[in-house]
């Protein structure tokens, strides 16, 4: 049985798990993410946290889907975790205690979608600036909207 198959069976709390395009894709409840990541890191050597982002499914409930990608530098395989969080309280657990790289990437996701990462002590804006209103990658943020930090010269 391949490593990904074993990882798939190990994550018994998953709502759905499948291997697509060579990547193990696991859907979880928001509360199960941290324990699943701990298991993936300690038991299956997913030591490289490559990416976290979100997808805004405007009109669906729960609205946001947070997506994590991990890579194993020992087995050369990838896993993608997904969870849905509601619009009113879009929060998931932070991975900063497990991976240093979570620090910047969670800040970006917080900037762009307003997802709160519980446990990340530093969610200051990173690509945006202090005082920026709204979250630009949300589907209800108009593309043309401008809010310059310094007023335009007329």
């Amino acid at each position, binding site marked *: 049985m391949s490593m990904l198959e074993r990882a798939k069976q190990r994550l018994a709390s998953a709502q759905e798990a499948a291997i*697509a*395009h060579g*990547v193990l894709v696991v859907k979880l409840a928001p509360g199960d993410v941290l324990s699943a990541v701990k298991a993936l890191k300690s038991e299956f050597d997913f*030591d*490289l*946290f*490559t*990416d976290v*982002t979100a*997808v*805004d499914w405007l009109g669906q409930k729960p609205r946001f889907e947070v*997506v994590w*990608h991990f*890579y194993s*530098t020992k087995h*050369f395989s*990838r896993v*993608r975790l997904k969870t849905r969080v509601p619009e009113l309280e879009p929060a998931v657990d932070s991975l900063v205690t497990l*991976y*240093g*790289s979570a*620090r*910047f*990437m969670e800040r*970006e996701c917080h900037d*762009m979608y307003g997802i709160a990462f519980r446990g990340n002590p*530093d969610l*200051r*804006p*990173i*690509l*945006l*600036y*202090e*005082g920026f209103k709204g979250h*630009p*990658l949300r589907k209800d*943020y108009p*593309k043309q909207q401008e809010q310059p*930090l*310094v007023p335009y010269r007329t």
Partner: protein
Amino acid sequence: MDLQLPNPVRPAFEQPLSEDHVIVNIGPSHPATHGTVQIIAELDGEKVVRTDIHCGYLHRGFEKECEDHTWHNLIPYVDRLNYCSALINDFAYCDAVERLLGVEITPRCKVLRTLLAEYSRIADHMTCTAAALMELGAMTAFLYLVTIRDAIYEHLANLTGARLTYTYGRIGGLARDLPDGWLKRLEEILDQSEEFLGRVHGLVDRNRIFIDRMRNVGAISTADAINWGYTGPVLRSTGAARDLRKDTPYLAYAELDFEVPVGIKGDNYDRYYVRMREIDESSHMIRQLIDMLPSGPINVDDRRCTLPEKQHVYGEIESLITHFKLIMDGPQVPAGEIYVAHEAANGELGFYLVSTGKGTPYKMHVRAPSFVHLGGAHLMLDGGQLADIVPSFGQINMIGGECDR
């Protein structure tokens, strides 16, 4: 006039840890940092105690803009991520869309993409190394490397029509085939680059000043590098031979003979040397690829993504309609999601695409190596000298276009 402009950043620390310390601000537009990056550093004399790094000054809403354009129209945008090796971005993006479509590119296209990706890697590593050397005062070495890089840019302009942002990849193929004599000139440039690289090695490798400034500066361990998400030359400089071209081969890499150079200490010297050795490996790969380049078409024959030939567009109604639909509506990519990672010059470049079956992506996310690397950059800077910030930062090779998106 009120000159009190709002501050775009909130520093992580405003009070020094000791009254002997001083907090200084470097950037975001500092002549010695390539890229608009701001470093707020607490100094104890010349020693860096801690740093707070801010990026985002080049943020232009890349991912938001991508949700509003057809799959084909994104190619000029992805060019502008890492503009030192734009072709690698092109091919990684096209690869992701092709896998969603279930399209297999032609053998000639596969070899050509691999060749051009390696050629771009040479240009990227030369840019990074040249800038890093110049910052340490090695002007001659800089000029040698930039001479070759310029020859590469001119040569790529011959093929693609642009020096920097090529828009040469197409979903399912490439914009056009090689012009006559292109491969001959390629071999000339490779020969010349070897001569010039030899001169650079001679100038700096055993140069006392260079070694003093680079050896044991900005050193990190493999464990730290992996924990902080480092990939590419920085991870390899720590001794871990991790390279996506070898570990999860894509394009034609599985058929090539090449080595993965690694460093020993993970310091700036090793990062310099790993990049120089990777240039050699890339040249070696390009020579193999020239020999194995098959003949045949460069575009797949698939009306879902490939634009028909211009003569047919003007001559027959079916091709005209195909062209029109592909341009106006975009290729209809089946619903689904995919994450594709290529080994870019700086590390793992990943594209996460979500399609809902339309001609535009529902979501497009770029895993930019520069951005992740910046998150761990304080490891290299803290505890070092103020003057070492610039060389250490140069070896991370932060590219504003891909970091800030």
